């Protein structure tokens, strides 16, 4: 089996031709993933029983002549902030080291109903807070492209698993770039859908107004297939959208001739390194495909980091209040009063980045600061949102970098949290606006490090975004 090239189409063809059964594929995939994992630490744990049960259901359906679903037999990795009933879900935190969820996330239910085979849970930054995967309580993930470098974060394990070939597709979560940035660092496709497009039910809450679940894949079509399966209204998430889910996969071959593509000048100014060169080259490919490519302006871009780190930490400080030693598995062994128990449990359990964000969030929400920080940030969020609405009057898609630089070395940026936050500049704006965004590989630096091109589209215009991504991929070659 050529694991690093295996696609959903190949799995389907192999099952149909009887080259392997779903159970055989699952067994092989588990063996391969378990053998490869020590290199990258992409998986925190595997779930062979669950994988084989899913695979058996697929084989039974095939034997009865039933349609086993669009993901039949496909090995899938799931970020360990997404709940899996009966399978440990740690959020890469000591606090949830032994937590076994009593229910499944809706995205998990849907992908298994579609025949997907979850083989394991992937590593990430603790509670999805970070841009390098170095904030995991269970050790960092290494980038399969260069093991001395980070895979990006926070969904670093999911990106690394797909890049390494230990999963065909994966689920990640994105609050300010946690799917797109690791996808770009590892050279795979990562999609953050419109806010509300995929149910957040069963996604451990970080910043509820910004959290998304989305797919990783090695090509745009596989990402579109997984998105199609998990998207759609869910009664269990009041913010999930009613809008019908188009058949994204049927529109991928369409022409992009005449599509208007905007390059925001604020994103390209100062991008003079190889990342910039590769982006300009990719924009040239879009022109050759017949797109009208021109400069646009998103004037409030420079305020996005400040806006985002107020809103996300405020929401995080509320959401993480629940980990207090009462309901979720871990309680400080030291005795004391109830309040002392809360404080010691949280002080011992949370890592440095979570503490930093809880503190910042508590500060900006505290008496006397709420208006100056939190409310101010919410008003600036409106301005950033309006920037995009105005841009989409002129263009059908926005093309931008994902990260100012490719994958950096482990440890390189850990001492300066502000610098780490500032590197999220290109992904945060789309998150604040709630629009769909994706990262598509657009080449490698001379040092061999992958770079991603970001495509952003109107709310619920995933079909346009994916079509442009697929057209670029065909022109430039998958994994460019």
């Amino acid at each position, binding site marked *: 089996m050529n694991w690093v090239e295996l696609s959903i189409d190949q799995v389907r063809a192999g099952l149909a031709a009887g080259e392997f059964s779903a159970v055989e594929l699952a067994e092989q995939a588990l063996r391969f993933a378990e053998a490869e994992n020590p290199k990258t630490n992409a998986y925190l744990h595997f779930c062979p029983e669950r994988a084989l049960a899913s695979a058996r259901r697929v084989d039974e359906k095939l034997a009865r002549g039933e349609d086993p679903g669009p993901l039949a037999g496909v090995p899938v990795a799931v970020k360990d902030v997404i709940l899996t009933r009966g399978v440990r879900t740690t959020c890469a935190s000591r606090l949830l080291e*032994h*937590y*076994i969820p*009593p*229910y499944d996330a809706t995205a998990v239910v849907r992908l298994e109903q579609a025949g997907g085979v979850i083989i394991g849970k992937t590593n990430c930054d603790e509670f999805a807070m970070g841009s390098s995967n170095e904030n995991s309580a269970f050790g960092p993930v290494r980038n399969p492209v260069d093991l001395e470098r980070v895979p990006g974060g926070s969904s670093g394990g999911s990106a690394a698993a797909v890049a390494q070939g230990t999963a065909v597709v994966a689920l990640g979560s994105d609050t300010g770039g946690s799917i797109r940035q690791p996808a770009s660092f590892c050279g795979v496709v990562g999609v953050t859908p419109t806010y509300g497009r995929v149910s957040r039910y069963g996604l451990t809450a970080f910043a509820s*107004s910004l959290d998304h679940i989305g797919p990783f894949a090695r090509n745009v079509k596989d990402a579109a297939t997984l998105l199609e399966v998990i998207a759609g209204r869910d*009664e269990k998430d*009041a913010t999930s*959208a*009613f*809008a019908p889910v188009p058949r994204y996969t049927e529109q991928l071959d369409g022409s992009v001739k005449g599509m208007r593509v905007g390059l925001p000048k604020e994103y390209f100014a100062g991008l003079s390194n190889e990342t910039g060169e590769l982006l300009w080259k990719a924009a040239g490919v879009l022109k050759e495909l017949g797109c009208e490519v021109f400069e646009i302006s998103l004037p*409030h871009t*420079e*305020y996005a*980091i*400040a806006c985002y780190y*107020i809103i996300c930490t405020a929401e995080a*400080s509320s959401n993480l*209040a629940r980990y207090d*030693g009462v*309901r*979720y*598995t*871990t309680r400080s062994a030291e005795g*004391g*009063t*109830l309040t*002392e*128990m809360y*404080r*010691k449990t*949280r*002080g*011992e359990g*949370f890592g*440095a980045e979570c*503490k*930093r964000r*809880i*503190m*910042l969030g*508590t*500060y900006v929400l*505290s008496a006397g600061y709420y208006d100056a*920080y939190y*409310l*101010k940030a*919410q*008003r*600036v*969020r*409106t*301005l950033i*949102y309006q920037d995009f609405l105005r841009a989409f009057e002129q263009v059908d898609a926005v093309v931008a970098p994902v990260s100012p630089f490719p994958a950096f070395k482990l440890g390189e940026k850990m001492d300066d*949290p*502000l610098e780490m*936050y500032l590197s999220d500049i290109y992904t945060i704006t789309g998150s604040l606006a*709630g629009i769909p965004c994706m990262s598509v590989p657009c080449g490698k630096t001379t040092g061999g490090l992958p770079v991603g091109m970001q495509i952003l589209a109107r*709310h*619920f215009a995933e079909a346009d975004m994916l079509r442009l991504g697929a057209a670029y991929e065909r022109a430039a070659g998958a994994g460019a």
Partner: protein
Amino acid sequence: MKITEQEVRYVAALANLSLSDDEVRKLAKDLDEILTHVDKLNELDTSGVEPMAQVLYDAEETATLREDVEQPTISNAEAMANAPLASAGYFKVPKVIER
């Protein structure tokens, strides 16, 4: 200085977070840098701009009321299964009321 070590300790108490002296010193420095950056927002005049708490987009009927029908939910035993300390179907915590 945007934030002192004393304020860090106050905020930590609000957040129910025990911190070591080292952590307090480091957080005072980190938060100071971040809050200084965040001051950038004051360059913008936002009077008359509505705050955005959620992503709002044009969509059809989004009222999320559904029929109120009884549905199975997580059992008490399942809900208690992850408790660090439980008995008789309740979460146990250190005593909060003194006789």
